[in-house]
């Protein structure tokens, strides 16, 4: 037998042994064990301190014994099986203080994560054994490493929600979230969504217009359908939350640039979303995001839902007030500005101050504006305005600034089926009230 075979024989066996040891070391030292050990050590320490202070030696001995058994511990995977949702949440494997089998009170004196108890009294009304953890917190309940469990990894699209975005979870089931304590931010988000006229372009489960994407399931939008490359976000922060936030804190024209100059084929306009980031504060953008993150595709059982009666229409005496309410309700502000204060950006539509010989065609096209109603309404008769609102302006009829540029992304949907009868008359009255007066004929 050649010497090399003998040498290889020894080395191969040594290698097998070494890898076998490595396998056992890796499997035996799973990350969660560290946390569980530390948790029970903390509990034991507490008991030992108690024992030190105990007057009765019998009590002292019993406490010390308890502490000892804590330290010896029973290290195991702990999980909540949520039957309603067919989910398994293993969060309590590390957050042992919130395992109701181990710690029925669900509170601890430890201040550090993952050892502390659940803050607030949410768990009193939301039994963790019934609902689990991820229904509110998101993240990957099946996982048992910190990074994977909190979902900040590739291929897990629902990372754990932190404040204030976690309020989205309240709104998922509580239709009455606007009147709930702790859900104020999401409620504010819903209010801002309406106020800024977002409904004018984005429907939510059918309510609102369809100029752009319906946001009814936006929280579950597959990340593979989103191009984050222009957001400037680092890859590990590519998630739906940051995608919505980016639309409200950056210029949508920059993050969805399209191909307005037609480099890759027919020109594609950039995002048609107006630059709301100019008007919104950081907290307001977060509020709208918190609200929208409640729009999940996942179905929750009907008995999870707390229903709220639909909001009554306000009773307004003045025709103009009623008309303004119609203007707000259908999201006209999205394109025509809050209180019709001026047309918002509509890429490559006609706009004020456009220079056909301008150096940067993108800058010039970006000066395109939706009509300023104060200027235009006055040029219509009552019947003409009514017809205009009813039929809208289809994308092909929006007048372009650059004829060979992209079709302007914003257009006016036909409102015939939505705004009618008295609402329509009220709206027209409101519009005439804000229009600049032209000479009487």
């Amino acid at each position, binding site marked *: 037998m050649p010497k090399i075979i003998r040498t290889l024989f020894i080395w191969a*066996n040594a290698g097998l042994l070494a890898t076998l040891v490595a396998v056992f070391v890796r499997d035996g030292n799973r990350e969660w064990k560290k946390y569980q050990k530390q948790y029970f050590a903390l509990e034991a320490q507490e008991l030992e301190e108690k024992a030190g202070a105990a007057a009765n030696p019998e009590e002292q001995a019993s406490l010390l014994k308890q502490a000892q058994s804590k330290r010896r511990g029973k290290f195991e995977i702990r999980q909540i099986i949520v039957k309603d949702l067919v989910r398994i949440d293993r969060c309590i494997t590390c957050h042992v203080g919130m395992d109701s089998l181990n710690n029925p009170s669900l509170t601890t004196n430890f201040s550090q994560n993952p050892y502390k108890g659940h803050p607030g009294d949410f768990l009193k009304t939301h039994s963790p054994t019934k609902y689990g953890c991820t229904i509110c917190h998101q993240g990957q309940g099946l996982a*048992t490493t910190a990074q994977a469990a909190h979902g900040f990894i590739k291929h897990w699209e629902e990372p754990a929600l932190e404040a204030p975005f976690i309020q989205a979870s309240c709104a998922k089931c509580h239709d009455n979230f606007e009147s709930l304590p702790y859900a104020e931010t999401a409620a504010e988000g819903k209010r801002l969504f309406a106020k800024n006229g977002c409904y004018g372009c984005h429907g939510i489960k059918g309510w609102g217009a369809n100029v752009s994407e319906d946001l009814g399931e936006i929280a579950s939008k597959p990340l593979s359908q989103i191009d984050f490359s222009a957001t400037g976000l680092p890859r590990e922060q590519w998630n739906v939350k940051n995608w919505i936030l980016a639309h409200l804190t950056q210029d949508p024209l920059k993050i969805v640039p399209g191909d307005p100059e037609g480099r*890759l084929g027919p020109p594609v306009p950039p995002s048609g979303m107006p630059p709301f980031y100019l008007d919104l504060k950081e907290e307001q953008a977060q509020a709208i995001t918190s609200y929208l993150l409640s729009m999940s595709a996942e179905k929750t059982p009907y008995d999870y839902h707390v229903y709220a009666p639909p909001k009554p229409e306000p009773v307004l005496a003045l025709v103009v007030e009623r008309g303004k309410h119609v203007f707000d309700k259908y999201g006209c502000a999205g394109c025509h500005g809050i209180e019709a204060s001026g047309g918002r950006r509509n890429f490559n539509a006609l706009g004020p101050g456009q220079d056909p010989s301008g150096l940067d065609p993108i800058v010039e096209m970006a000066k395109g504006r939706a009509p300023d109603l104060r200027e235009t309404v006055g040029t219509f008769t009552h019947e003409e305005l009514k017809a205009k609102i009813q039929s809208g302006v289809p994308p092909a009829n929006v007048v372009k600034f650059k004829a060979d540029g992209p079709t302007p992304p914003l257009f006016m949907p036909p409102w015939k089926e939505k705004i009618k009868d008295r609402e329509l008359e009220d709206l027209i009255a409101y519009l005439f009230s804000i229009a600049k007066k032209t000479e009487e004929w």
Partner: protein
Amino acid sequence: MTGNPSPTPIKPPEKFSPSKLLAKIGKGAVLTDPEEIKKLVTNHQIWRSVFRGGIWKNTPRDRALHIMGNVWLHLHPVRVRLRSLRFAYSWGLGGLSFWLFLLLSISGILLMFYYRPTADLAYRDMKDLEFVVSFGWLWRNIHRWCAHAMVLVVILHMVRVFLTGAYKPPREFNWVIGVTLLTLTLFLSFTGYLLPWDQLALWAVTVGTNMAGAAPFLGNEGPFGDLLGMKINNDIRFGLLGGTVVGEATLIRFYVLHCVFVPVVMGAITMLHFWRIRKDTFSAAPYSPNEEKLETWPHLVAREYVAAALATVAILVWALLINAPLEEAANPTVTPNPSKAPWYFLGLQELLVYFDPWIAGVLIPNVIIAGLCAIPYIDPNPKGVGYYSFKERPFANTMFLFGVAMWFILIAVGVWMRGPSWSWYWPWENWAVHKPPPPPTWDVPNWIGGSLIAAYFTAGIILPRLIKKNLNWKITLPGTLFLCAGLGLGLKIIHALLLDKSAFLAKNIPIFGPGSFILIVFLLFTFAFFGVLMPQRYIRSLAIGRYAGTMILVLLTMSILIKIGCRTGLNIKYVFSLPQFNFNI
């Protein structure tokens, strides 16, 4: 244990009595001599009841009986030739293929204890294996990496067998069995690809099985499928998937195929393969007089053990360092862009750029398999059996390596160069930067294209046989290159004229995009060298039947290059097209 089989000097047998020894121990004696302990163990009744043969005296007879009397070892001959033991001869690839198959069976069975093949549970079971099952991650990683390694090792084994001419008589049929095993290996790996039920699995299998729908006659999108009444819900793809899309029915089908059907068939055929190796003798190497022969025990068995152990260490290290991939849960409504087939099919997927699916996905793989099986029967060269020799088999080796290289180059392009919408992206390019769509294509009129195809095969077969003398390559090669450059230039000019005559004459369109011109000349020259000059030099005097068979395979291989050139250089979509039958070339 030396290499010399000279008879071991037989000492007068020592009278060994376990009972005496045990009595000695009973009196307080301590056993320190390892030889003595070994003797005590191996001569014990229990040991001897397990292992056949008498008391082990390490004589040649003992070692021979050890091989013959052991069911696991008896497929080996008792003695093997030294040259077949050399590592640089076989590289241990056949044995490693089988060892990987065994490792896959073991890890696969362990995984089956946890895995449930339903759409709701399969993905979750993957997560459980990773996060909570003891050693679950290990067995899944081992299974995944072994599967990749086995595909590669089996292919390399085939290359080795080809290069040592080990498929020549009397081993022709065992080569065919080997090709069958290679096909089964690919199918086994492919069926397993679906089981994790994540996006990677779903879409790779969707891409792969869509090919079945393009099968001629049997697929709803294939040529002449209409004639047999093929629809989306009754064709061969439907039979494979158990539905019109990859769904839960597919999952259970692939599960049964992967865990039961294919492994059993493969195990049976593997046994056939081994049996023929044993019966056709272990090595194809020619005998030399007084050739040294070594005992299988320990010489071969030790080598096999070392190779298997080292491979296992490599797989374990791989499994420790890199986790098997698992993407988002399968979602039929979200198509990743690009959707890529498993790597070993990416060469074929890459060919989809140049051919309709029935050619790229059905015709070409079937011709490859048939062509591989035909090799031993059309190669009459008796030389080069049992050793590597380029000189004695210049044509066979060149053409085979050319085919293998083409296969792997196409795979490399598919794996690393293709991004969204199957556009060309260099590995360092950002996929988020969109690429312009490919230029518009055009079809060659059928009468021209049909004549060209007929001329290609007729001239391709006749031409090399027509020139009867040996060409001097020092003159021929530069001449051919010059000819190809001229031809390439002419083609580009004709193409430009066809595209837009006035623009061309006004020099307004850039026709000599250097990339596509160089590619055309390169492909033309490759064709001229491998498709004309090589056959002319080496096989023109073959018997007509074998010559024609070989040339058809060569010309079919070359036609792939020609079509790549037509598409990339001249934007031609179809050379010949019968749209009413979905028959487009």
